[in-house]
């Protein structure tokens, strides 16, 4: 038997009008029992107790109480509901949550709001007594046993009718009376409280279960998250600690403990606190972190140091946050920076070393990122350019220092760099504000940076000192050469005079003779012609001497050059070969190939060689009993020198004359170009060399000179300042 669930009921059979099932006046007119207040009170007390102790049973208790005090056959409650099982004040249906008595099996059933006795009661807003209601509401005929009489009382919550309480007589054994009505009313009020209490409890139940559900969710999430976080903590790749603002470290992972070398207990017990771990100078940073925590709930990572248990310090990076909902507890990560600090220190040291090295060597360095024109200079380079160290630089600023004459060079270099030339090297000058000049030598290396961009790394050396020294040396050399020439000239003055005197004497003598010959009777024409011829010849000789001398002492710029002595010797031999052969001299030349060069005056050195050849020739001029052999040799001598020796098979010289020979005017030569041994020696000495003579083991003597090779790196063909691709 299921009562219908329709909220609307279409009558398919005729139903009796409402009045026909109501007996209102009957309730008032019937004889009423006298109230049994005691019983009523007991009942109410019981209900109260039940409401307090086990509110979920209250409806049933109420139904039982109604049954008892009205002595009805059935009693129960009807509550408005929407879904048939939970009370709802806007419900369109009544359901019976509790029934006592004969109708007890019908619990859970109900009636429609708009077509049923409970609905009538709520419509009339009054207690109603029904009889045989199935005449109007045929569906109630399903509810057996039939109701002879039914007494229904509405009850309210917050002014709204939410249901009825009722009692039913199934026979006419007894009829409801006014007393029943009064008790029911009273109980109705109680029902109202009970209803409210129960609803409240239900609400609470819902809230609680909702909260429990959420909490369960959160717990699960938390445990999932916790497990994940735990992974990080236990991986010990970074120190993780939990702390509170009182300064106690409440939890710490192994990694942290190892960092500070404390036991967990030292920290969690509070014996060793955050402030104990922090060196005094770092406390201020902690205060700042705490301020951030209080303001934002977290603090940005910062560096500081901790004291280890043994008093040493460990540099760390620290970041953390407060736990949500807590104003006092939080978590932090602690990263050990020892390695980084060591690396930084290494870097700093090597940078300091580099800076120092640069200062010592006057080498500065720079990097130039071509695409962005980003230029970074080392301190030393600032010093070289005499800019304030560290100021930002532009190409214009650098350009302003370049010597005006080297500006095009500079432009060229910049252009080449921008076009991605390879390594390059160039030399240029700076013009300083005080108008002094600096010579720079730069070497640049093209490289790609981490983004693949073209970047040049360059070293720039201030070679001013070297250049100035070179210039001074060159100047000194040219002066020396000039002095050597002057000395030679001075020494030769007498010799020149002598050389010229010979032909002049001839001229005067011959001319005088010519005069006399023409003055005789008859004149000696042939003789005169002969003397005249000789005169002209001698005059030519004199003129030749002068022009050769002029060539020798022409005021050309210093004729210092790199000379291959073997080559120079060959030239001299070639010039003299005719004369040597005519003197019956066999010439042997042993000239070393690829001799290192010497630096000096080619003409002067050749004069010396010529002089030695002539001396040798003279020494052999009276030799008839053996071959006249002249050996010329060039070779390397020890101490980076080149030696030239001229060996003859002549008459030799007496030991006591060894030095006398080199004195001025000890000898004169028949050849008009002669320069004596003393001059030769002066020339050789001006070339930082020496000239000496030695007797041979056999016949004759050997004259030798030895002069230094051109030193490495100071070759005189210096590169012009220009950009060369390396």
């Amino acid at each position, binding site marked *: 038997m299921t009562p219908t669930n329709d909220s609307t009921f279409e009558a398919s059979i005729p139903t009796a009008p409402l009045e026909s099932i109501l007996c209102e006046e009957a309730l008032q007119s019937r004889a009423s029992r006298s109230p049994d207040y005691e019983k009523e009170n007991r009942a109410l007390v019981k209900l109260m107790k039940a409401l307090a102790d086990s509110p979920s049973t209250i409806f049933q208790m109420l139904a039982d109480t109604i049954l008892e005090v009205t002595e009805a056959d059935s009693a129960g409650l009807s509550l408005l509901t929407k879904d048939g099982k939970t009370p709802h004040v806007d419900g369109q249906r009544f359901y019976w949550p509790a029934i006592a008595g004969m109708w007890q099996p019908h619990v859970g059933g109900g009636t429609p709001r708009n077509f049923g006795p409970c609905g009538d009661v709520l419509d009339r807003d009054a207690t109603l007594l029904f009889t045989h209601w199935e005449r109007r509401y045929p569906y109630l005929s399903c509810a057996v046993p039939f109701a002879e009489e039914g007494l229904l009382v509405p009850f309210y919550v917050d002014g709204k009718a939410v249901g009825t309480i009722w009692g039913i007589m199934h026979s006419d054994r007894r009829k409801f009376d006014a007393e029943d009505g009064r008790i029911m009313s009273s109980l109705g009020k109680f029902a109202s409280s009970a209803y409210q209490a129960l609803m409240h409890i239900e609400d609470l139940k819902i809230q609680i279960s909702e909260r429990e559900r959420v909490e369960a969710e959160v717990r699960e999430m938390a445990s999932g998250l916790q497990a994940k976080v735990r992974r990080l903590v236990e991986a010990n790749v970074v120190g993780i600690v939990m702390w509170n603002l009182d300064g106690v470290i409440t939890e710490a992972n192994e990694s942290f403990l190892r960092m500070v070398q404390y036991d967990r207990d030292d920290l969690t017990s509070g014996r060793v606190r955050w402030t104990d771990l922090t060196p005094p100078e770092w406390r201020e940073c902690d205060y700042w972190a705490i301020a951030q925590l209080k303001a934002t709930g977290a603090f940005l990572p910062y560096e500081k140091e901790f004291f280890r248990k043994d008093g040493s310090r460990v540099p760390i990076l620290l970041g953390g946050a407060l736990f949500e909902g807590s104003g006092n507890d939080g978590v932090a990560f602690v990263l050990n920076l020892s390695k980084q600090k060591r690396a930084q220190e290494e870097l700093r040291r090597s940078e300091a070393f580099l800076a120092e090295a640069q200062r010592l060597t006057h080498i500065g360095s720079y990097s130039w990122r071509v695409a962005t024109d980003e230029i970074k200079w080392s301190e030393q380079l600032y010093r070289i350019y005499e800019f304030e160290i560290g100021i930002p630089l532009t190409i214009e600023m650098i350009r302003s220092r370049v010597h005006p004459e080297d500006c095009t060079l500079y432009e060229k270099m910049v252009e080449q760099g921008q076009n991605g030339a390879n390594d390059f090297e160039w030399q240029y000058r700076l013009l300083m504000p005080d108008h002094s000049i600096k010579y720079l030598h730069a070497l640049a290396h093209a490289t790609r940076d981490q983004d693949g961009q073209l970047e040049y790394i360059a070293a720039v050396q201030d070679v001013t000192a070297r250049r100035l020294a070179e210039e001074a040396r060159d100047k000194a050399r040219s002066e020396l050469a000039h002095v050597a020439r002057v000395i030679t000239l001075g020494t030769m003055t*007498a010799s020149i*005079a*002598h050389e010229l*005197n*010979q*032909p*002049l*004497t*001839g*001229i*005067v*003598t*011959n001319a*005088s*003779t010519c*005069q*006399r*010959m023409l003055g*005789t009777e008859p004149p000696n024409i042939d*003789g005169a012609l*002969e*003397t005249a011829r*000789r005169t002209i*010849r*001698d005059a030519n*000789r004199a003129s*030749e001497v002068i022009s050769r001398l002029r060539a020798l002492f022409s005021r050309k710029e210093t004729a210092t050059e790199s000379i291959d002595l073997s080559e120079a010797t060959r030239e001299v031999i070639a010039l003299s070969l005719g004369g040597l052969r*005519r003197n019956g001299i066999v010439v042997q030349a042993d000239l070393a190939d690829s001799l290192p060069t010497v630096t000096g005056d080619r003409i002067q050195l050749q004069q010396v060689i010529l002089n030695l050849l002539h001396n040798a020739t*003279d020494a052999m001029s009276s030799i008839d009993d053996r071959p006249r052999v002249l050996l010329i040799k060039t070779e390397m001598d020890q101490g980076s020198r080149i030696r030239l020796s001229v060996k003859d098979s002549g008459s030799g010289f007496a030991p006591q004359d060894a030095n006398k020979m080199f004195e001025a*005017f000890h*000898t*004169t030569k*028949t*050849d*008009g170009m002669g320069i004596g041994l003393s001059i030769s020696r002066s020339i050789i000495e001006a070339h930082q060399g020496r000239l000496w003579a030695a007797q041979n083991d056999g016949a004759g003597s050997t004259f030798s000179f030895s002069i230094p090779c051109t030193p490495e790196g100071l070759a005189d063909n210096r590169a012009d300042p220009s950009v060369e691709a390396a």
Partner: protein
Amino acid sequence: MDLPHIVLHGSAMECEDRSAGKRRLLSAVVDDDESVRESLPDLLREFGFAARAFSSAREFLSSGCVDETGCLILDIAMPNMSGPELQQELKRSGREIPTIFITGQKDETIRTQVLNQGAAAFLLKPFSDTALLAAIKTAMEGN
């Protein structure tokens, strides 16, 4: 420069022939310079002397004409034996000859030295013919 070598080599025979019983008439020129040897004897002959030239002191000494030489015109700076050295040698061997020194450079020390050693004259090249003549006369008269 190639000059024709004009060296007057006399033969010992010639000198001996000439010197037999004759007074010393020879003027000897000793100079290593070619042009001097070339030109001076001709001038001397214009003066009326017999003249011969020698290229070195040794040549003169070994020529056999020493005793015949009435006048010696001597260059100072020569290879091997210099003029003053020849003067010494003649003195040493007791064959002093009236000597006129000729030279290219002015050196007071040498001048003093040779004059002290008995030189008749000291002429600086180039010298005029008249100066030479005068010197020769002085040399001869001093004999």
